[in-house]
């Protein structure tokens, strides 16, 4: 269970929070003008990134506030936390070396395969 540093309450365990999925997918302002595909794109389609992902989280068992998190989904490391409405920060590095980022032998206990910050 990882820790999340709620910008309003401080560091708490992940179990207190709900993840709202990928961040920066704004609800379109002009729904009637969109095609079914475009609406599906907003509603369902996701990048589901392995590596650095921008996400929305809610401190649901605490202050109930929403905020954004930059998280490496390949390691569960939280790289940055920022407020709703702010633009996504630049995060360099920390991406997997290869698309899967996994070592080519064994089950992952040998070589380092992620660029550490």
């Amino acid at each position, binding site marked *: 269970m990882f820790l999340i540093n709620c910008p309003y309450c401080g560091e708490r365990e992940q179990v207190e929070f709900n993840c*709202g999925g990928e961040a920066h997918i704004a609800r379109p302002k002009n729904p009637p003008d969109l095609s079914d595909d475009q609406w599906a794109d907003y*509603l369902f389609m996701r990048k589901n990134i392995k590596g650095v992902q921008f996400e929305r989280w809610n401190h649901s068992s605490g202050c109930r506030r929403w905020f954004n998190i930059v998280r490496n989904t390949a390691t569960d490391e939280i790289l940055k936390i920022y407020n709703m409405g702010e633009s996504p920060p630049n995060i360099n590095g920390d991406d997997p070396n290869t698309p899967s980022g996994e070592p080519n032998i064994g089950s992952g206990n040998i070589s380092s395969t992620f660029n550490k910050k």
Partner: protein
Amino acid sequence: MITDKKISFKFDGKKFFGFEGDTLASALIRNGVFLVGRSFKYHRPRGIISAGSEEPNAIVQLESGNITEPNVRATEIELYEGLNASSQNNWPNVNFDFGSINDFLSPFFPAGFYYKTFMWPPKFWEKYEYFIRKAAGLGKSPKEDDPDKYEHFHYHCDVLIVGGGLSGLYAAKLATKANLKVLLVEQSSELGGEKLNVDYVQSALQGSVDNVLETSFGISLVNELENLNNSNNLKIIKNTTLFAYMHNNYLLACQKIKNKNIRQIIWKIRARKVVLATGSIERFLTFDNNDRPGIMLANSVRKYFNYYKVKPRGNIIIFTNNDSAYKTAIDFYLNKIPIKAIVDVRKESKGDLVRKARNFGLKIYFNHGVINTKGRKKINSVIISEFDEKLRNTIGKSKKLSCDLLCVSGGWTPTVHLFSQSRGKLIFRESDATFIPDISFQEEISIGACNGTFELDDIFEETFNKMKKLLSEFGKEIQDKNREGVNKIFQDKIKHLWVVPSNKYFGKTKMFVDFQNDVTAKDIKLALKEGYRSIEHVKRYTTTGMATDQGKTSNINALGIISQFSNKQIHELGTTTYRLPYTPVTFGALAGRHVKEFFDVERTTPIHQWHIDNNAKFENVGQWKRAWYYPKEEEDMHQAVNREVKATREGIGILDASTLGKIDIKGRDSSEFLNRVYTNSWSKLGIGKCRYGLMLGDDGMVIDDGVTSRLAENHYLMTTTTGNAASVMSKLEDWLQTEWPELKVFLTSVTEQFSTISVNGPLATDLMKKIFVDFDFSSENFPHMSFKNIQINSISCRVMRISFTGEKCYEINVPSSYAKSLWSKCFELGKEFNITPYGTEAMHVLRAEKGFVIVGQETDGSVTPIDLDMSWIVSKKKYDFIGKRALNRSDTIKEDRKQLVGILTKDPNLVLEEGAQLVEKISKPPMAMIGHITSSYYSPNLGRSIALGLVKDGLKKKGQTIFAPMPDKTVEVEISNPVFIDPTNERLSA
């Protein structure tokens, strides 16, 4: 520590004596019992091989009845008076086991044999399987409920130290002296670890191995820490195994308690820094028939002697590939226990220990190995032989030596489980074939043997340096060490010999790698031969490392054997994943107190006790306990519900509706907010008025409904369904905070602040007049779909005239602390009207009679408002609201979707089963289904059954006859209007 207090215990029904401080294993060895179990597959006789948590063989069934526990390692059971244990996996007994026929048939049971057979005849697998299952398994599951309790503790500390050996103790001392909050976790019941409890006990007596100074240093370290324990900043917990290392230095440990009230405690530890000092585990060697009782790990034998004071008897032979086993020989020699021979696979060793053994005149066979052993239930002799240059073959004539105890050492494996669980990366060290920590992933250091540092002086040096750095990260400085160096013992190099050569044909050998699962070297060879080359494939095909010991002594040997057979370097193979838990953890402990009455929170309304007192039956709705119906004497459910329903339509029914979600909505843009989240329009709702709303997801599907009242210009009270209160609140916050931050709206959940008493029925107004005596309840003053604030005894109630039954109804929202007294008052005053409490079942009948839907019953996440024939509530004027766009997708605009209709059985007395499927044409299955029954009840008011259902193109099919094919008969039904009572709403306004 062993004392001289005698303790009696039973093993396999036979009575023995041991001493206080013994483990079951040490007591059994003390009594000369070597055969303690049978192996999984071949039922070979097996004995104790180790003295710790790595034990693969000596696992027993402890106790019986409701406190029995299967698969307990005898090496970890502290002896107590009256202990009763038995061996496992044998029949009729461990000495004579019919299953051992498998050993003779073993040529037919190589690794994975079951994948290749039992396929004919095709239907017979389950018959074969029955016997396979019976043969498998080890101990027996308890059959009765566990009488014990378990607890969870949370602990936060600056530094967590795992392992109370000398390195861990030294680290603990440094951290404690630096005034940090320290937790030290030790697996055994005593501090000091292997070095102090095994190595120095003898050296203190004999001055043999290391120098005495170190011993006293170790003892004083233990004493110092014991004194500091439970002081301000140090806590030591013993008998505690750290079994999981999770994210962000979150670690879990399980403590065994001797206390009667609580059996085990799970410690949930969050540490700023973690120091791993988990030591190392001795390896076995892989030679023919290496699994006989009486063959043990060399250092474990030494521990049984030095720590448990169990004196070995008979002919003792040591078989090693490294220097450490010589410690065992030296200790025994100094205690006048004869060593028959030391068999060393190396050509020679220049190590200090070896030199010492030589000086003592011990017989050492270099370049030799034990190539076979004899003795069915106990070893009685070994065959030794010389090896060729490359250690691949035996040469010369082999020699038979009689032997009662064979001490084996294949080197040492650092215990890197926790480091690996923490996602640290390992690196392979060729010199002693060990995986050791390389790159940390979390805030953690490894010290001592678990870091591949075996010599005491090096350990202290490493611990000091690493701790100095770690403490500096807390801003703490420590003085330079004031400890003198110790004499280093020079140990010569280990020689890896993953498979000890045999003079037999390899295919005929039985060289065990994983003892418990009966995996042999030739099984591994077979797996490789068959193309299972990945280490994971070999593991899964042969099951090596998958037994209850999880391969603590064997995994590295399996890797070595793979490397030898596949001509690959070990580091090219990688390892399998180190999985939690480090040692098995009791389910009950993991569940802690979250069982029985604490399994899940029960939510009850303030009126709950009244329901209990009045014989209510309850229904679980989410976490809520809701009154389901109130049977009177000798009434069954059907009768009770009929009575409640009729009473409500004819007089007064009263319902505790406090579980409905209530959200207080305030702020400048409240109306606009409601416009966006509900399908209908809210701007023009008058203050004091109520309106029903339907909430959709942005996929157009109904997710909730309820009545919202406008309390003031910018103030609303929303009600939600009971089950969705939390999720609706959370979704609304989501929209507000993330999509519409420009809206000034504030949401507060007031579900528990207010209780709701729903007074229904034609006489409802009469009762209301008695409760709120001065108030004008005329429909002119208080029309349907409006609310009033009315006082009673200076308590302000918000009374809403809304209805979920179709009857005239007042929902009284009262501050929760007054709910029960107001409820009682209703009964007091309502007596003359025969006021009747009704539960959720009657509520369902009443609303179904009226054709009202329940979200989650008539809907299932695939139903739009149009499907519910509720287009009237979907605004055409609004440019947008949540769900609007999705209602116009190609599938959602289809006209023949499943739609809500009434369903009437042709037989009015027959109540359909909810969930029954509907078809147009009866045929043999498969039949094309056109819908299903969502709600179905007997309506006492109509004197017949009624049902609601979702039917494909149902709105156009009203009047049509369709069928519900049930298992016993087919039921003919007619599609009808879903409103069965008072379609013109006369009763509401009456």
